């Protein structure tokens, strides 16, 4: 969240309280073993391992939105690799642990591969199937000793500390969990995690903002697997004996229940869910069937009544309290737009030169030809309008240019370089930004985070820094946040920085989407019906903003049904009808063109200059 420099002291208090709470929690966790008997310390040790597994699940499912039902297999790969390397091959524990982590990361890459092609329930059953396959392997393979499992795994040696004591092992686990949680939270709140959350909320809009979806999904799976592997290594070292029954599908579902009940979108929630369910399960272990009944009922109840999980409950009460108090929420207001700094053109582009050339573009959907040999040129520094009746192929043209659809023929050239058939993220990196006809904001990201996703222009492989140079990431993130605050102030949105887009009025959401597109520092901006749903005053502001954007060196193409806006804003207009370019030229020429009048009003319409205002009537209502 971006905080402006002059943060009121009142807003800082919760941060101080949070830091104090963390310290208190750490002290309590440190003192906990003194209060526990031998039985409960082993429960605590198991709870921490489940918490570690749950944090991994939270990262891949809650943060990146990828269904992963193979976490228990990652746990197993970590544990079995450690066990096999220490008992059969005689490696030391820590060497085996490192190799086990590498093996688990590879397993994560394998399980993540299907995510490149399928999502949602398909991904669910595929990852579950791979987990079943893994369980089948460990119950049958000679190397895993089948059903009887592997015993005699040594406790990890550590500076002469006797880690075969469950009490001392607790501290080792606690440190690993704290480190894992801190690293996970660091990811969530910095560029990598922000992109993952954007991808979860809207993969299409995320890719148009430059996010490389596939590598990011892969990273999410590998991250989850590394947490699973760490838990597996620790489990092998703690118990000293592993067998297939520890890695069952029932445990996978238990883990899933922990994540959902705790709150999948919050890593802290995952930890809470893991601890609560482990303790509850241990309490009820003697009641087996009744415990199972109760556990099932609780799961159903939480999902039905508290979909955000346990961590979501305080927020629900807070908003109920606010409603009870009668306060209507926020007093934030939209401020005036501050014109962007004027620049003749972006570097390497001469005004008037062709920036985007579309030639003979064809795109079909089954039998329908949505784009039929469309050619047009966008010159640097202009505002080009694209108009046409509904279904004439305008949005399809944008979708082909921005890489959502592959063209079936023709070519796109951007600044002299071929740009057809590229992925949306590649098009975005070439300096093309867009908005959508139906708003596509990242619904669970704050206004500031929406901007930050677009501002971050790094490639996905830049994320290697997370492994060895987190400080560099932190500094980069701070710079991004400063820039986001500036841009939000320019667009008059500063007061909404910490809010979720869904809570804002429609006109403000439209402006935010425009600001988000500009945050990507594009050379070419594609606006798809930017005035749809805006009132008269908002439309006037929009015209001013678009002109200022153009004056700052960005070329603008806009699709719009509001002819008043098109006529006043655009220097040139292209008219599409049934996938064909039927007219092109200055607004005054185009509005008198007989072909255009026919397309809008039908053959019988008398071509008279007065009719030019008529097309306005066809404004789309969503």
């Amino acid at each position, binding site marked *: 969240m971006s905080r402006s420099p002059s943060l009121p002291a009142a807003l800082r208090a919760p941060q101080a309280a949070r830091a104090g709470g963390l310290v208190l929690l750490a002290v309590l966790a440190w003192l906990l073993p003194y209060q526990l008997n031998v039985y409960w310390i082993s429960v605590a040790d198991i709870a921490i391992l489940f918490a570690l597994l749950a944090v991994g699940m939270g990262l891949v499912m809650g943060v990146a939105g990828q269904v992963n039902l193979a976490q228990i297999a990652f746990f197993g790969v970590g544990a079995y690799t450690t066990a096999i390397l220490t008992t059969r091959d005689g490696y030391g524990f820590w060497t085996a642990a490192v190799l086990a982590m590498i093996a688990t990361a590879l397993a994560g890459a394998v399980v993540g591969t299907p995510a490149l092609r399928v999502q949602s*329930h398909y991904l669910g059953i595929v990852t579950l199937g*791979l987990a079943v396959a*893994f369980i089948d392997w460990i119950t049958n393979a000679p190397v895993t000793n089948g059903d009887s499992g592997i015993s005699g795994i040594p406790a990890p040696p550590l500076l002469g500390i006797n880690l075969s004591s469950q009490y001392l092992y607790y501290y080792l686990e606690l440190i690993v969990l704290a480190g894992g949680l801190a690293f996970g939270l660091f990811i969530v709140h910095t560029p990598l995690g922000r992109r993952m959350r954007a991808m979860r909320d809207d993969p299409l809009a995320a890719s148009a903002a430059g996010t490389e979806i596939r590598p990011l999904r892969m990273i999410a799976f590998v991250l989850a697997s590394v947490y699973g592997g760490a838990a597996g290594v620790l489990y092998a070292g703690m118990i000293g004996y592993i067998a297939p029954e520890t890695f069952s599908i029932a445990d996978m579902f238990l883990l899933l229940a922990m994540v959902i009940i705790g709150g999948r979108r919050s890593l802290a929630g995952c930890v809470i869910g893991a601890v609560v369910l482990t303790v509850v399960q241990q309490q009820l272990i003697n009641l087996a069937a009744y415990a199972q009944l109760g556990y099932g009922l609780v799961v*159903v109840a939480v999902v039905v009544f508290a979909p955000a999980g346990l961590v979501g409950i305080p927020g629900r009460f807070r908003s109920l309290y606010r409603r009870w108090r009668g306060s209507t929420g926020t007093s934030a207001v939209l401020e005036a737009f501050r014109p962007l700094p004027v620049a003749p053109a972006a570097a390497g582009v001469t005004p008037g030169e062709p920036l985007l050339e579309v030639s003979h573009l064809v795109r079909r959907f089954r039998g329908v030809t949505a784009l039929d040999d469309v050619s047009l040129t966008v010159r640097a520094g202009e505002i080009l309008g694209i108009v046409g009746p509904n279904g004439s192929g305008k949005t399809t043209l944008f979708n082909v240019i921005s890489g959502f659809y592959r063209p079936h023929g023709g070519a796109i050239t951007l600044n002299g370089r071929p740009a057809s058939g590229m992925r949306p993220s590649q098009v975005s990196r070439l300096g093309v930004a867009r908005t959508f006809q139906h708003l596509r904001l990242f619904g669970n990201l704050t206004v500031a985070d929406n901007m930050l996703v677009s501002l971050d222009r790094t490639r996905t492989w830049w994320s290697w820094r997370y492994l060895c140079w987190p400080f560099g990431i932190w500094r980069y993130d701070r710079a991004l946040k400063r820039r986001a605050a500036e841009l939000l102030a320019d667009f008059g949105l500063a007061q909404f920085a910490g809010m979720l887009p869904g809570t804002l009025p429609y006109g403000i959401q439209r402006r935010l989407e425009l600001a988000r597109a500009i945050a990507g520092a594009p050379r070419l901006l594609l606006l798809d019906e930017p005035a749809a749903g805006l009132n008269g005053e908002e439309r006037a502001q929009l015209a001013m903003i678009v002109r200022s954007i153009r004056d700052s060196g960005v070329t603008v193409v806009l699709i719009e049904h509001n002819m008043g806006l098109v006529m006043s804003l655009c220097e040139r207009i292209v008219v599409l009808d049934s996938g064909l370019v039927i007219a092109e030229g200055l607004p005054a020429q185009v509005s008198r063109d007989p072909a255009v009048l026919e397309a809008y009003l039908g053959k019988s319409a008398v071509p008279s200059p007065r009719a030019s205002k008529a097309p306005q009537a066809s404004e789309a209502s969503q």
Partner: protein
Amino acid sequence: MQSFFQTLVSGLSFGALYALVALGFSLVYRTMGLVNFAHGAVLMIGAYVASTFYLSARLPFAVAVPAAMAVTGAVGLVIERVLRPLENKDFDLMLIGTIGAGTVLQAAAILIWSSAGRGVSSPVQTAPFDVGGVRIPAYNVVVIAVTAVAMAALTLFLQRTKRGTAMQAVAMDHEAATAVGIHVGRSNAISFAIGAALAALAGALVGPMLYVSPTMGDSLGIQGFAAAILGGFGSIPGAIVGGLGIGVIGSFAAQSFQGYSDLVTFVVFTVLVMIRPTGIFGERTVNRA
């Protein structure tokens, strides 16, 4: 060659059962937009109810099975009412919510019938048919025939009756369906009940082939779900082809790789899904544009 056909026959018999399970998944998904992970547990309940009628009440098998379908269908109505808030929701929530419901059913089964399983004697005592040296157990023929009849009946119901057409309308656009006077809640309840009855049929039929136990639905549910995905989620011909496909793959995997049949089946399944993500017949989804 003979052993090839022997394996094929056994694969097809199990495949027919997977097809029935897949059909239940697909029907519920297609009409309600609910991915129901409790389906395996419903199947298990059906198997227990059928075996209770057949073994304890000593009803003939042909009576016990429809009775079990009716009872399980009624249980389905209750489950649907509980899960109604999850319909058309985010997949993670449906996943864990229906898994939770499955856990409840499993616990109920343990409380009613104890956690020890029971064997069910085959209701058909005829000697296996011998077709060119390939032995086909008579019961397997019954299973395949009953499955085929159930599929045909369901297809006719969906396409030829007013209720069936209304259910398809709900699947395509539940708001528009409401607007033309279809009671969406009732339509969903009926489709869930039919799905549960299909699961009970599968459970009742599988009883004499495997073993009836509280956990029997876990593996059958996963195989049936995989079958539905392989065929094209929501498609009826897809459920049949997917079910037979998973059955045959599993049967050949078991013959060639013994214990590793699950491993081979699911690796092959993963590869197939990656090659053709929407399944053989393409997904018939609920329209949520």
